[in-house]
Structure formats: C-alpha cells, structure tokens
C-alpha cells in the first residue's frame, strides 16, 4: 500500500480577509443606519441608494471596459458598491435623479478610476462625488426633508419616486421646494438642524431662540437638545461602527481621536459662550458625524496607515470639522474635512513610520 503524501506549500492557513468580503461587511454595517434614516426621512433615502448603486456599478463596469481590465474581477471587490452606498446615504432624499447620476459618476470616474482604480485613489471617492455635487448644486444639496412626524406632506413611495424623477408631485415642484426651503421650515423640506443653528447664530439670534424650532428635540434639560431624528440616525451608525471595530474591519484610532477632538473643542467653545456655540452632544449626534467617523474617515485607501498617524489624522478631521461647521460657508463639513486630511495623509504617514524590531527609530532624512 502506498501512502499518498502531497506536500502543501505555505501559507498553511488561508486568510479570511479579501477586499470584497471586507467591503461587504462595511456595507452590511451601514444597514441599521439606513433603516433608521428611512424611517425618519421616508422612501427617498432608499430610492437614492438603489439609484446610486446601479449607476456606480454601470460606470465602474464601463470604465473598466475602456481600460481593458477584467470587469467581474474588479466588480467583485465591492468597492464601487461601498462608494455608492456611502454617497447615497449622504444625499438629500429628494435630490433630482440627474444630480445623483452626476455625483456618482464623478465619484467613480474622477475620484477613483482616473487615478488607476481601487488602491491608487488619494481621495475618498464618495466624498469627491459629494463635494462635486455640493459645489455644483448648493441649494438642492442643502435641502433636506424634515422628519416625517412633523412634516406637513408625507410622501408615499410613489410620491418620492415622482419627486426624484419628475421633480414634481401634484402642485409641488422642486422649484417651489427651493422657495419653501428659503423661507425655512414650511412644508415638505427643511434646513437640517446644523444649518438652522448656523444660520440663526449668524443672524445674531441666541442659541435658545434657534432651538425653539420644531426640528429640535430636548433630550434632558435646556441645553441637552439634538436634531429630531438625526440623533437616532447617528446612534444607529455608531452601533454599526462599533461592530466594525469588534470585527476588526477598522481600528479604533481614527473614530476615537476624531470624536474625542470634536467633543473637546465643542465643549471648550460651549463653555466659553453658552449662547453662541452649540453643545458637544449636538455636534456629536448631528449631520454625518458618526457616519463620517466610522465609515468615511476610515477608508483604508485614502486614510493614514500607521496607528500613530491614524490618531493625528482623526484629530485633524475633528478640528477641521468643528471649524468649518462653526465658521465656514457650509452647514456640515465631513466631506471637506476628510478630503483635506486625505491630502495630508501621505505626509503624516511619512513622519509616523513605526520602528522596525531591531532597528532604531527611523530618522526622517532631508531630501
């Protein structure tokens, strides 16, 4: 009897992490947030997501064909899917379809494929798409729907579809929406809580006056307020993010340093002048803070790669986030803060190289 002995070459344990699986895990972790967002802001969110995903996959496939690369191999890494999901979440629920198409196309084409595909992009593709849209269509991009429970008009699924694709439902059109949103909170749209606070503070109102708007909700006491709905959305993304850390898909460094920086700065200013700066809780649970901290800033391609560097990177985003929100021209600032720090990431990595075992701390040589 001959014993069969086939030697296997190393590595003897197969790793369980390929890009596609990792990206899929991140996408799955956004689901609780997406559900809460849909609950509060209506069907628009889901429609935007489906639209964004289908456009992203189409654009990715056609550019891969142009570049003569294997299509299904690259589509399977799920990176286009993740970009589309992150961008779709960030878009206003009733954004006209052509704007979504432009945003997703710029994200995949300008943000990723032109640089050479996944792994070569210096900027976070989803945020590139978002910023292109924000600069191109500032009014449409800052027009959100109010939380369903306090909205005068509640759009059904078909209503949302109509709104996105034909830009009108009954007597309502996107044009009239723009008018409405300019006169603040009237019907189907409203400025986001961040936007409202910023405008009111800019117009010399006190924070207390601003908070009397129905889009706010007191958690406890006078100054423990949050945006209605937004609080739960952020909480859901926080939960998804913590699960990502537990599964070791991302490390804790970026989210923790980002959120801690935001907490410390906003606390300082809030203590300094209670009436003209929003509280830390408001900053932590408004807009895209949690989504940004756990899902966007942690993009493995465009963020820092050393642990020490990641902490500096998170701190940088936190500072920029607070500065742009408080004194900049736009209500939320995750996209700008992340893109600006993407630019700094290679430099941070250069100066925070870890020590190799048995070597001295690398001294940075002057070139």
């Amino acid at each position: 009897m001959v014993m069969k002995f086939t030697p296997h070459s190393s590595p003897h344990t197969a790793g369980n992490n390929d890009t596609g699986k990792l990206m899929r895990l991140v996408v799955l972790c956004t689901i609780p947030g997406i559900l809460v967002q849909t609950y509060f802001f209506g069907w628009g969110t889901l429609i935007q997501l489906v639209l964004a995903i289908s456009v992203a996959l189409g654009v990715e496939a056609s550019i891969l064909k142009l570049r003569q690369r294997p299509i299904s191999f690259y589509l399977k890494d799920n990176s286009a899917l993740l970009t589309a999901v992150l961008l779709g979440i960030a878009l206003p629920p009733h954004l006209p379809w052509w704007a979504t198409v432009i945003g997703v196309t710029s994200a995949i084409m300008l943000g990723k494929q032109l640089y050479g595909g996944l792994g070569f992009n210096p900027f976070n593709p989803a945020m590139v798409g978002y910023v292109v849209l924000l600069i191109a269509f500032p009014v449409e991009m800052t027009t959100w729907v109010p939380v369903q429970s306090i909205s005068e008009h509640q759009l059904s699924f078909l209503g949302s579809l109509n709104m996105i694709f034909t830009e009108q439902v009954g007597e309502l059109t996107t044009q009239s929406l723009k008018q409405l949103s300019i006169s603040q909170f009237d019907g189907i749209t409203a400025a986001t809580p961040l936007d409202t606070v910023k405008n009111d503070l800019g117009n010399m109102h006190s924070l207390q006056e601003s908070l009397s708007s129905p889009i706010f909700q007191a958690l406890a006491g006078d100054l423990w307020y949050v945006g209605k709905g937004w609080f739960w959305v952020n909480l859901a993304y926080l939960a998804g993010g913590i699960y990502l850390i537990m599964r070791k898909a991302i490390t804790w460094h970026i989210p923790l340093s980002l959120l801690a920086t935001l907490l410390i700065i906003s606390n300082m200013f809030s203590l300094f002048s209670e009436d003209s700066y929003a509280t830390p809780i408001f900053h932590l649970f408004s807009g895209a803070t949690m989504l940004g901290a756990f899902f966007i800033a942690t993009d493995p391609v465009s963020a820092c790669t050393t642990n020490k560097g990641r902490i500096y990177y998170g701190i940088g985003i936190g500072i920029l986030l607070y500065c742009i929100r408080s004194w900049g021209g736009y209500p939320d600032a995750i996209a700008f803060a992340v893109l600006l720090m993407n630019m700094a990431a290679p430099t941070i990595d250069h100066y925070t190289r870890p020590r190799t075992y048995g070597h001295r701390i690398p001294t940075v040589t002057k070139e």
Partner: protein
Amino acid sequence: MSSPLKEISFNGLWKNNPALVQLLGLCPLLAVTSTLINGLALGLATTLVLVGSNATVSTVRHWVPGDIRLPVFVIIIAAYVTVIELLMQAFVYELFLTLGIFINLIVTNCAILGRADAFACKNPVLPASMDGLMQGLGFTAVLVVLGAIREVLGQGTLFSQANLLFGDWAQNLTIDLFHLDSQFLVMVLPPGAFIGMGFLIALKNIIDKRIENKRKATEPKRVIERARVAEA
C-alpha cells in the same frame, strides 16, 4: 514656408504647446476660461504681447549682458502689456473690466518670459516673431477650447457676450444650446477648469499615441543585410 519656420509653427501649436505640454501660464488659463469669449480675448492679448516681446528681445539680443537679461526681458514684456492694456481700455473697455487683473498679470505669464529666454534671445528676428505668434496661437487655442467646454457645460451657451470683443453686431452670436435652471457651478468655478484641463491634456496624449502607433505600424521593418566577408 521654409522648414525651420514650419517646425517652429508645429512646435508652438502642438508638439511643444505652452499650455498642454509646457504647462506654463496656467494661472490665467484656469482663471479666465469661464467663457469662450473671455478665453479668446486673453489669448489674443497674450499672443500680441508674445510676438512683440519676442521680436524686441531678438533685436536687442546682442546688446543685453547675460547677467541682467531677465530684468531687461521683463521690462520689455511689461511695456507691451501696458500697451495692450491701454488699447483694451480704449476700444473694448467692458471686456477689460471682465478680464480685470488678468490683463496686467500677462507680465508674469511664464510662457512669455520662457520664450524670450529660451528662443528669442538666441535667434534672429523673423524666427523669433514666428515663434511668438505660434506659441501665442497655441495658447489661445487651448484657452478657446477650454472656455467653450466650460461655457457649454456650465451655462449651456456658446459665444455669450461676444459683443464685448467684436462690437454690438455680435450680440446675436450667442447660441443657447440648452436651458439650465441653475448653472452647473462646478464647471463655472475653478475646479471645472482643472478637470477640463486634465481631460484636454489626456486627449492630446491619446492622439499623440495613436499617431505614434500608426507610424510604427506603417514603418517598414529594417532588414538587416549581412555583409559577406569572405567568399564561401
């Protein structure tokens, strides 16, 4: 045209195009090209300055000491820019207001100083002026194309405000290609210029590569002839 002049023209317009290949003078190029007419006007002004400065630099090249040549060139260029500026104030005042500081900034356009130093001060007057004209036209062509792309994508028009450059009769030149509720601001603002410029450079590289491939394909393969050394 004799062949050196032909080569100068080809260099200026395509092979060594100041905007697409040398990437010089990018500041006015990116800032001004929000419409076709703005691009055309700035391009023409730059071309006039280039021809004048190249011709003058070439004329005085034997008397300018090498150590102080750059200040001398800058003074010559500045003189021409002042002439252009005053001419524009006299004849196309509105356009002068639209282009604003970028007319004065032609002095600092490194494409012009670059041509003066790299070409004009080493060549006789005729090739030098020809070089100025062709480099200027190459620059203008890029400005016009970029301006057209940004105008069409940004506002859906072409030749808007042509009356500023050509006089009142040109008011009807404006073509409305499509109507936009709101401008596509990205193309109107500087990011659009960078994106458009990137695509133009990519397009030029693609065309060059196609031509190169075609040349390689048609070129007959060199047959190596063996020299017989000795009678077999």
